[in-house]
């Protein structure tokens, strides 16, 4: 630290190199901060729980062929019965959609039927009494549907159900004092009341795009079995039987009735695959940003090594003179380390401003959150350390310049 002023004086005589290193540090900081932030956001999304037990879970998409949409009820019931009786199958349901599938029902909910605007948004899952066991949901209050409560329903004629289960998040949103169980709510803009008979700990909506972020864990379970042209099946296997039923379930369905389409793509998916496909671009983006960060840091470090080595080479003579005038090896080392630190500090100050500016711009252009200053702080420390690390090798080479260098000509 003892030599800041003369170092600054010397740097003033090497403006180009100084500015180039500082600029590189600044730009790298700006990009690395935002990239880290994007990574963290994406990882946060990927880590969101669905509320289900995701192991031993199979999903299928089924579409009926040549049957009127209203007449598919018995076919679906037969399918579910057949699947439940298969060896290796723990339980199974027919459902309109499921978390991370994309595509589903959403509607408003209100506690007062006369209110003009709904209080919050929710998704609707149409299930029977096997849903909790099949999906692996945790009932935290109240009771499950009874089998005698399940009703067949045309999707174009869905009305509110008198009995519903909801997620805890939705119950607490509508009744912040936690007294949701047994209360009446109004779903789907209707005036028909629905009583909350059960509360499940958590269940995500089917979408994972940002538009549903405001009601991510709001779900209503209705005791309806929908008819219609297409349906989803969810099947829970006995432990370790997932691979076996992934083959046996579609085979059984085709054997039961050939007039159906189970798409070759996305028709039969274990839930691991559903999750991987749903978060593919999030994970890819995180990996891409991670790679970009690493390569950027490596290139910046290489740039610092390159330029500092050049400076050391250029200043061998004056290093020798300094050594002759009494500088210890440590003095020389600390000269170059301090010099780099000064450039680094200038770089990170500019870089931090750039990072924040870049983020503000991204916020206006894309649906992105404000950059947390923690990332800037982490980036600043990382780049200063990177600079010190990068300068270490050339600085040590400088420290090893013998004092006798002072007496050599050229």
């Amino acid at each position, binding site marked *: 630290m003892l030599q800041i002023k003369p170092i600054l004086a010397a740097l003033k005589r090497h403006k*180009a*190199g100084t500015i*180039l*290193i500082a*600029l*590189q540090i600044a*730009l*790298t900081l*700006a*990009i690395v901060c*935002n*990239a880290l932030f*994007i990574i963290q956001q994406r990882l946060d999304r990927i880590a969101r729980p669905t509320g289900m037990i995701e192991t031993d879970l199979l999903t299928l998409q089924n*579409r009926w*062929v*040549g049957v009127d*949409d209203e007449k598919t009820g018995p076919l679906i019931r037969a399918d579910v019965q057949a699947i439940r009786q298969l060896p290796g199958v723990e339980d199974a349901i027919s459902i309109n959609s499921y978390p991370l599938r994309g595509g589903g029902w959403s509607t408003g909910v209100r506690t007062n039927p006369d209110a003009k605007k709904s209080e919050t948004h929710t998704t609707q899952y149409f299930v029977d009494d096997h849903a909790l066991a099949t999906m692996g949901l945790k009932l935290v209050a109240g009771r499950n549907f009874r089998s005698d409560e399940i009703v067949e329903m*045309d999707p*174009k*004629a869905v009305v509110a159900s008198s009995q519903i289960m909801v997620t805890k998040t939705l119950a607490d949103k509508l009744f912040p004092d936690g007294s949701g169980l047994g209360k009446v709510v109004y779903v*789907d*803009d*209707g005036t028909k009341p629905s009583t909350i008979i059960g509360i499940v700990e958590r269940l995500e909506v089917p979408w994972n795009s940002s538009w549903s972020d405001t009601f991510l864990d709001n779900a209503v379970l209705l005791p309806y079995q929908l008819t219609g*042209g*297409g349906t989803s099946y969810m099947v829970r296997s006995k432990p370790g039987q997932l691979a076996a039923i992934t083959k046996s379930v579609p085979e059984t369905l*085709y054997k039961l009735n*050939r*007039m*159906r*389409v189970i*798409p070759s793509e996305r028709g039969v998916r274990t839930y691991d695959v559903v999750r991987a496909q749903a978060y*593919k*671009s999030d994970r*890819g*983006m995180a*990996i*891409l*940003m991670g790679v*970009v960060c690493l*390569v*950027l840091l490596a*290139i*910046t470090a*290489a*740039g610092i*090594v*390159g*330029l500092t*080595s*050049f400076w050391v*080479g*250029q200043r061998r*003579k004056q290093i020798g003179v300094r050594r002759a005038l009494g500088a210890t090896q440590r003095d020389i080392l600390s000269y170059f380390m301090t010099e780099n630190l000064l450039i680094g500090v200038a770089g990170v100050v500019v870089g931090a401003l750039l990072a924040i500016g870049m983020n503000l711009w*991204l916020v206006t*252009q*894309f*649906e992105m959150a404000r950059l947390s200053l923690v990332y800037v702080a982490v980036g600043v420390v990382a780049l200063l350390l990177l600079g010190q690390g990068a300068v270490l090798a050339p600085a040590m080479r400088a420290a090893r310049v013998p004092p006798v260098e002072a007496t050599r*000509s*050229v």
Partner: protein
Amino acid sequence: MFAYYIQLGLRSLRRNPLLTALMVMAIGFGVAASMTTYSVFRATSNNPIPDKSSQLFVPLIDNWGPEDAAQNKGEPPEAMSYTDAMGLMRDHRGKRQTALYPVAPSVIPADASLLPIRESSYAVYADAFAMFNVPFLYGGAWQSADDEAHAATVVIGRKLNDKLFNGANSVGREINLDGRNYRITGVMDTWDPQPLFFDPVNTSGFGDPIQLFIPFTRAIDLKMATNGNNNCNKHAGEGWDAWIRSECVWIQYWTELPDETAAAGYRDYLRGYAAEQQRSGRFHWAPNVRLYNVPQWLDHEKVVPQEAKVSLLVSLGFLLICLVNTVGLLLAKFMKRAPEIGVRRALGASRKEIYAQFLIEAGTVGLAGGLLGLLLTGVGVFGVTLVFDPDIARLARLNVSLIALTLLVAVLATVLAAFYPTWRAAQVQPAWQLKSN
């Protein structure tokens, strides 16, 4: 002289292998990152129908009112209700027009041992084929009369024709959709506009080529529900008829307007239509209509994925940093040779010649970086499947123009980066280095 400078450049590359390797890698990585993401961006921001993109228009009519529009920056719903689509079709104000929506019929093969298949399908009017420049291998579109007759006709894609008829001319033959027979009027040649401009609302802009078109009027007769989004601002009521009459929006509408005058006329017509709906008491608000051409519509629907834009931006930043890095390293490399420059100057080299020598040297570095970048771009284009939907990833290709662009960007960028270091090198005084140390 040029050859001599190239030779000098190559020799110099070998002289400082570490510095050279650093520069080549920086340029290679920077260019590769930019080019890879650019390939995706280029594919997603492609103009899918360049000759007609300014003649095809999507009209939007606000049938929900300002309260709902306020939640969407005042924009009308991005699809149309059946009522409005039929109203516009009836008035027939464009040169051509079609309402369309995705349907999901299953094809039942004649061979009973085969399972039913589903292809992506749309219900359209006969005008659609001429509007969208759909190419035909055999036959052609059905007639407008077929629309009016709600005829059981169909246009199929080449892939489906290969599957069902082994590629033979199937015009006039029949296929079975959901148990009903349809007469084939035409087989499309490969038609794969990307983005799928005519329905970004239901496809997010990308997807497999459409293999099946049936008449819109027929699909409505058969009560085929939309296979895409259906949005309602209030409960539609029970059953098909209630839905058809409701304000739920689920239809895409396109019209062809040959010139600016026609477009202006159509805008007036839309306002008039909405005003008429207001007078008749259906709308309780002033006309709120839009008319978007293809590029405007794709932009409005944000078809270019956010990932493509963000990663392109990040990559460009990356390239910028690599260039700053290159400026620094070139400066080091050139100034190391100040004595050589002094001697050259003393021996009669003009400033211009020093410029030429060092810029060409930088160019060789850029070319080497470009070759590395090309290799990495190849790897990157494969890696695109990691980040993007398979539907989008398949569009990113390493073709001749991308190869040429990669090399060009690498060389140009490096030469650009070399200007300052070269200027500094040219400032070295003749033999200044000989005089003192």
